């Protein structure tokens, strides 16, 4: 029996209705999780999710599956810790195998400035519910004996933080578990239907236009990646988002021998071993904004070079495949979710490089907002109007890589 083959999820497709209480644009993790929590937590099931490709075909299926809460500001630490907690029980709740594995994350520092930043990270994490501790090189060697602490003589490891709760899960399976859970409770999910416009009644958004016709909606949630700005423009909402590519690559499959996730702030790469044995490596976003999914050689080459510096054993592993996702970056490196000021139109966007890890908490909180009409405390700091109110959430802890 091949345990990597999905064995249990059953997706039930139905034809679109002409009207839904809630229409969610975008069948990725955030859209589907919102639908799932609307159905399971609030009994709202007259919900239609519209996806222009197949479910999870955007960045939900292109990320590097890191789950962590070691962010840099209290508001973010609380929010992501909620997601870490929800992820931990998601397999049991959905009765689906998501390949969720707690691995622990090492974040390495190579300068005195880096050490100070990591100490600060440990402090704010621990105070707001995410366990992160400062670790010395001898402790780092125990957590990850494969590391060359001398950094090839160029980037010695001088210290770091360890975040034991960090985990990974298989991205597609998270998408499917939410899709199935929502569908089973009556939510409609539609693939290959692109939303081409929004229907307005005065200021209010009252539906969507699709290639197959108009669909009325009590509320429309934009949960799309990349083109969130385009969709929001149709509602007259200007989003402060720039979209940048983020690349990653994997090696072939090897025996499961590499336990933790490792990240280096100065060398700007991170690495983990997937459940099927690939070494998965990523780096920072491309500086040039773009919607392109095209992969570049410079990224592959330079990321491999940097990773080998700290983990020499990687040198002889074979690269299997590289790919690109795109990241919606907000000016303060924090997400934007909630009401937009336009009645009937909400957004969940600005998921930058932290979208996958935020799926459960983002979905849960958006569902609560939609169901109650009240913005929950946990996501109040991330409302769109923070830019107008000069209450931005600058987070250096998230301004990095994954």
């Amino acid at each position, binding site marked *: 029996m*091949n345990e*990597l*083959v*999905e064995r*249990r*999820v*059953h*997706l039930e*497709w139905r034809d679109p209705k002409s009207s839904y209480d809630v229409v969610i644009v975008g069948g990725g993790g955030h859209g589907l999780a919102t639908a799932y929590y609307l159905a399971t937590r609030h009994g709202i099931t007259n919900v239609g999710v519209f996806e222009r490709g*197949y479910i999870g*075909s955007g960045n939900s299926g292109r990320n590097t599956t890191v789950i962590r809460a070691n962010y840099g500001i*209290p508001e973010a630490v609380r929010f992501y810790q909620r997601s870490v907690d929800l992820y931990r029980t998601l397999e049991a709740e959905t009765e689906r195998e998501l390949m969720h594995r707690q691995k622990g994350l090492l974040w390495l520092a190579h*300068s*005195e*400035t880096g050490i*100070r*930043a990591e*100490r*600060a990270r440990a*402090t*704010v994490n621990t*105070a707001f519910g995410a366990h992160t501790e400062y670790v010395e090189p001898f402790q780092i060697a125990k957590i990850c004996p*494969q590391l060359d602490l001398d950094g*090839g*003589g*160029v*980037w010695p490891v001088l210290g770091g933080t360890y975040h034991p709760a960090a985990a990974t899960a298989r991205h*597609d399976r998270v998408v499917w578990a939410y899709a199935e859970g929502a569908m089973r409770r009556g939510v409609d999910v539609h693939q290959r239907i692109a939303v081409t416009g929004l229907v307005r009644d005065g200021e209010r958004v009252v539906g969507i236009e699709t290639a197959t016709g108009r669909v009325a909606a009590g509320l429309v949630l934009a949960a799309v990646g990349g083109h969130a700005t385009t969709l929001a423009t149709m509602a007259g909402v200007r989003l402060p988002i720039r979209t940048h590519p983020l690349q990653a690559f994997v*090696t*072939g*499959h*090897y*025996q499961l*021998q590499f336990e933790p996730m490792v990240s280096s702030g*100065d060398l700007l790469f991170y690495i983990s071993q997937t459940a099927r044995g690939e*070494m998965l490596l990523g780096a920072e976003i491309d500086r040039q904004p773009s919607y392109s999914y095209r*992969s*570049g*050689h410079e990224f*592959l*080459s*330079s990321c*491999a*070079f940097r*990773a*080998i510096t700290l983990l*020499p*054993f*990687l*040198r*002889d*592993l*074979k*690269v*299997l*495949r*590289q790919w690109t996702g795109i990241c919606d970056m907000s000016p303060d490196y924090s997400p934007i979710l909630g009401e937009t000021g336009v009645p009937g139109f909400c957004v969940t966007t600005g998921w930058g490089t932290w979208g996958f890890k935020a799926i459960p908490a983002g979905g849960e909180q958006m569902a609560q907002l939609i169901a109650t009409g009240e913005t929950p405390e946990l996501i109040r700091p991330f409302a769109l109007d923070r830019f107008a109110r*000069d209450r931005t959430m*600058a987070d*250096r802890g998230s301004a990095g890589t994954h």
Partner: protein
Amino acid sequence: MRLTVDRTTIEARDGDSLLEALLRAGLHPTGGGCLCLAGDCPHCLATVDGVSYVRTCQVAARAGQLVERDHLGGAAPPLWRDAEDLLDARPRETPVRHLHCDVVVIGQGEAGVAAADEARAAGQRVITLDAGAGQEAIGVYPGPRVVARTDEATWHVHPRGEIVIATGAAEIQPVAPGSGLEGLLTARAAERLAAASFDLGRVVAVGTPPAGVAAVQLEGEIVRFCGEQRLEAVIVRGRDGVEHRHSCDTVSLGLGLHPRDALSRMGRGLSVRAVGDAARESNIPPRPRDGIVCPCSRVTVADLDSVWQRGFRELELVKRATLAGTGACQGAACLPHLRSFVRDRGHELQPAFTARPVTRQLTLGEVAAGQHHRATPRTALHDEHTALGAQMDRAGGWWRPWTYGDPMFEYGAEYRAVREAVSLGDVSTLGKFEVAGPDALPLLELLYPTQVSTLRPGHCRYVLLLDERGYVLDDGMILCHDPRRYSLTLTSGGASFAELWIRDWAESRGFDVRLLDQTMALGAINVTGPRAAELLGRAGVNGVTGLPGFACHLAGEVAGVACRILRLSFTGELSYELHHPARDSVALWRRLLELGRDLGIRPHGFQTLLDLRLEKGHIVIGKDTDFDSTPRRLGHEWAVRLAKPEFVGRQAVLRTNRIDLDRKLCGFEMAGPPPDEGALIWSRGRYAGTVTSSAASHVLGKTVLLGWLDLEDGELPAEVVINGHEARRVATPFYDPDGKRARAEVSLSPLLAPPRFDPLPTGSAVAGCNRFSRLEATRIVAVPAALDRLALGPSELGFRLAPDELLLVPSNAHVAIDDPHAIVELDTGFAGAWVAIDEALSFLERACSWPIPTARPAFAQGAVAGLPVKLWLETDRVLFVVPAPFAADFEARLR
């Protein structure tokens, strides 16, 4: 020849591929599966000399090879073999070769050879890549660039024109129970082995027969392959619907072809053309009925059916739900069957899924070929610091002395030298920028929120740089020479961005200005401490009547070195910043240390500087500020003149100033040890902010801090708790609040007669270099037309770095330039070395991805070995020019 397989020795023949050698010894690399001998299937994988996932059919057998059959039965190989070698950090040298051409042809079968001939006949320069000759193309990238693996190097081929894909077609693999047995060959593989005089035993053929192989031809559909480990028989359902069993030792499978089009699929949008079989439509085999479809991920037809029935109803979802097509062969074996399956169930033939690099696998070491670490620049004083025992650390993007000597013991001594005597600090890392021209003032008025027009010649001022959102980007000084000429300083870490920022605004507004980055060209030494003026008096300041007053600057000669002397203070003590040609840094540093010996002089490191400025409440951008820090939040509203009609960020500052303030950067003092930066600030049990800087103040006898504090009901709390200790919010500066020390009157007139100094060394060495030495050059920024007209002397070289910028070697202070606003400055910030032409070109082929001009002489510039390099190419030699702070790194790379 002999090689070792799983610790036993086998014999191999010359000219055999490794796969052939294994088969001759009766060893199937993976234990079974249909072999193609063409690099397509995953059945011949093995670990060779420590590298797994090697396609043994693509590798020549070599004496002494160490082969391990780690992939037997589809097993995963180990990540590392020998824990002892785990931390072996010795690099395996994989060179890169950059090759330039008009057309690259990938594949040298019939169609590839024809395409190459055709292009050559049309006068084009052609490079061919032939997997059969060990040149495996692994990806087509934007550029365009084709990356290929060879045993000798990783090739980067840069075609100006077309990429021709002539990779041919792969043979379709069988899907039926027993497809994992030994004894299955594609028809072409059977032909090749027969030609290499393999004994294939009794051969039966299904589909296209193998040429030149005696085989019993079978008609119909394969039901199953029978046998335990080795093939014993094949069962075929004939046209009559009856199953027939045929005993055999080998089955040859000619099941159709599908194009090797992964490179074409990943090259969409680039100038890529497929020819020959690579351009053909794929044969779609009959729908798979039973058995393994994807051998890499061990996915069966039943698995496909299972996910299909549960709603995974398109090719991508089937792939993702089963992971079929995501293994070592990236779908080469299974894709035609997957498409056939989806067509059968979904009644629609879907296109092949997206291809991503890499198509053929190479190691991380091989892809990393040609890469270098991000070099950290060194100031001209780097070796002076290390000789003094400094611990060097990376800060603000530069190597800087963190402390000198024993950090516990010496630390206090550095601090005391500044507060009580005199000290030197290397501030060469500061960004330094020159602005000249009729629009110099309008540009600076736009960029800076201060009223620049009130800054008089000879004066300087602290300034903030804001972005359009009103957030603080950077800070620094403006020095006014005259209203048409200014110098700017920028922070060490922010300078490179700030330069882009300044140039961007100048260009977008069309300002008539000349801009010159002098960060590398100028060294800077901060002479600080109550006895700083005394030291400068000893060093002798020539050419001026006195030292500059506070917030003033002037040009003069200090200790025999031409300097721009700025009087300002970051440490809180009397301070003079000496900006001087980088060439002279070492002489100036040594002379000042020598002259100040009996004054108690010693240099201070960056750690001490951070504490000194903290006592003065001076912020460090990026440390005390966040990327959404407004002047108001920083308490720096005094640095913003809103009455000015326009400056970048003004609208945002006006807008946000109308909103209630939420948090502010404040000063605190407390008893007890200094908390870590990042420590939390609590007010009445509630989180109220974080500490950004902290230090135990020697002179004040208490801990002083800067930190972010939230307002409560519009008020800043006065008492807070940090690390369990009471802390009190206080006004800054903590130390010398009236600035009496920094602004102290200096009565040092007349200056002491300057002592005699030896003549300054010229053509001087650069820290850490043997081959490179400092260039004496003149840097000219002027309108392009003036540079076009510039007549060079016979021994002068003029490198046009930009349309408005010229580097003149050797230096010529009297160069006549027809632009009244031209900036003409001595520039000793570059290092150069002559290299013989052969060595240079061989190095450039490895280290330079762009084409080198063929004319001689020629000037060229760009990234070489990861660093900004300028080249002057003569017939028999090449001058390499690099910024001196990177010269040591470049020299190490120039091998």
